[in-house]
């Protein structure tokens, strides 16, 4: 019972984005996907979530190829937060969160999902009048609403988040990570593209490091996120590397 990626390869417009990526996402795991810009993190997330099909290799969910699931049945088992920002019409926050429900959503559930980020007071605001961080919190509430039936039924699902910490203030960054932890404790499998190595180190069970489309390291957060990673993958100069190393040290303690 898990999501299994085997030897994934993916190219776009003749350019190789991902090469030979394999890994497993088991229920009850919080996975952080890290790496420099352009390493293929978002692409990998979309391949794992079934939004794109790999050119080579396979992704299977519970032993069955992901491509054999219907869009509707996948939507009941996994939700995805993308980086898309395309709303131009004056929807209210209630409307936007309700879009996450596959059936008609009731106000109680919408408020419940907004409450995770103390965002319930936004419910009657116009989405377009919100700040970037507030919009991100609303989008996360929408994704939660999609999985609320599985949450209520105690039937763990998969959650994929593409840079969910974008635009969130420190307080809400920690609130989100704590929420993801509590979902993980209920058996959810969570994959999260993340730039903040300190938070990844503090909260993630598993870390995958991508560089130039290849998986260069995978394992427990403490084993993977270290000074060597900062040097070889992120190519951090000595001075900031030292700062980051001491931050990671604090996070570990």
């Amino acid at each position: 019972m898990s999501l299994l990626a085997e030897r994934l390869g993916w190219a776009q417009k003749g350019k190789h984005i991902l090469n030979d990526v394999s890994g497993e996402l088991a229920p009850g795991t919080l996975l952080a996907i890290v790496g420099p810009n352009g390493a293929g993190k978002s692409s990998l997330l979309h391949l794992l979530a079934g939004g794109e099909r790999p050119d080579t290799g396979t992704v299977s969910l519970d032993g069955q190829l992901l491509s054999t699931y219907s869009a509707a049945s996948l939507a009941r088992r996994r939700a995805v937060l993308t980086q898309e920002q395309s709303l131009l019409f004056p929807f209210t926050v209630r409307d936007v969160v309700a879009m996450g429900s596959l059936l008609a959503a009731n106000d109680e559930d919408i408020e419940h999902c907004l409450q995770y980020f103390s965002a319930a007071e936004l419910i009657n605001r116009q989405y377009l009048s919100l700040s970037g961080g507030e919009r991100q919190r609303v989008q996360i509430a929408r994704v939660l609403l999609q999985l609320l039936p599985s949450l209520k039924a105690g039937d763990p699902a998969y959650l994929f988040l593409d840079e969910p910490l974008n635009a969130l203030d420190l307080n809400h960054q920690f609130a989100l990570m704590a929420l993801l932890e509590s979902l993980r404790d209920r058996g959810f499998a969570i994959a999260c593209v993340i730039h903040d190595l300190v938070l990844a180190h503090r909260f993630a069970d598993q870390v995958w490091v991508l560089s130039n489309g290849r998986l260069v390291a995978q394992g427990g957060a403490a084993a993977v996120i270290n000074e060597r990673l900062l040097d070889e993958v992120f190519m951090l100069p000595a001075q900031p590397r030292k700062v980051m190393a001491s931050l990671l040290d604090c996070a570990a303690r």
Partner: protein
Amino acid sequence: MHYTANPKMMPSAITETRHPNAAYRVLGLLMACLLAALMLAAFVGAASVEWQHWQWRAWQNPEAAILWHIRLPRLCLAAIVGAGLGASGAAMQGLFRNPLADPGLLGIANGAALAVAISLIAIPSSWGLLGLYSISIAAFSGGLICCIVIFLFARRSGGGVAALLLAGLAINALCGAAIGFLTYLSDDQQLRSLSFWTMGSLGGALWTQIAVCCSVLIPALLLLTRSARQLDVLQLGDRSAEYLGIDPRQLQRRTVILAALIVGSCVAVSGVIGFVGLLVPHLLRMLIGPQHRWLLPGSALLGALLLLAADTLARTVVAPAELPVGVITSLLGAPYFLYLLISQGRRL
């Protein structure tokens, strides 16, 4: 999970509560206004109409002929074409995720008019009802081709508003040039018909035209309304919609075809009437919000009302002569379009 939000971040600006009842009320009000406007407009015009002409028995009465054979068909056609243009505008704005999409601005109406012009020259006018349908089919095909071209272009260019409008400009110019070329090939009778289609007019409406137009428009409108919720979700983006179990490509294909059907059947009977599809959904969003299950039927009602009013103005301002109705809608719509461009300028 027990982190609380910073109290400094409490909401400060616009709050808005919208209740489904509000949408029902606006829709009901629009329906009542439309019926009242239909009644009122029947009395206004170059020739006077008396109360007794309304009796069913007066159908054959020559004095009532103006009401039953000229004015009423024209009013009904105005309402139907207005409904079609309003609803197709709403659907296309949803499809392109863009409040500036309009069948006229994007060149879809002109594409339909070009196809009609070609069929007018190629197909003899003596084909009766079949001829009417052949014009509708030509208009539909022309509109569909332009719609697909614009849509593929929008997808390639990443859906920017400016790119979309410029593509529409190019298609409009191309279709305009092609229609101009066809006028050189046409005889006198064909030339008159051609200028009718490019100017846009509701004069000379026939009950058979109305029947043909309705037989396409009503089913297409009902089918569009069925995908209202999916169109809402599509606003999140193609990928997010797909992750919510919707097939965005299938939805977009269906919407393109239905919108082109509606625009085609409108252009077939009335020519190119601009700006109704831009103006109406925009006004309605301010009243009832952007949800398509209200917006689509509401745009049909408000579009009908607007075109009926515009046409009544067109035939009374300079009576007994009349203005092309497209002139009135452009006079209303073009300044509003400019206003929209200025207010959305930062996003272009």
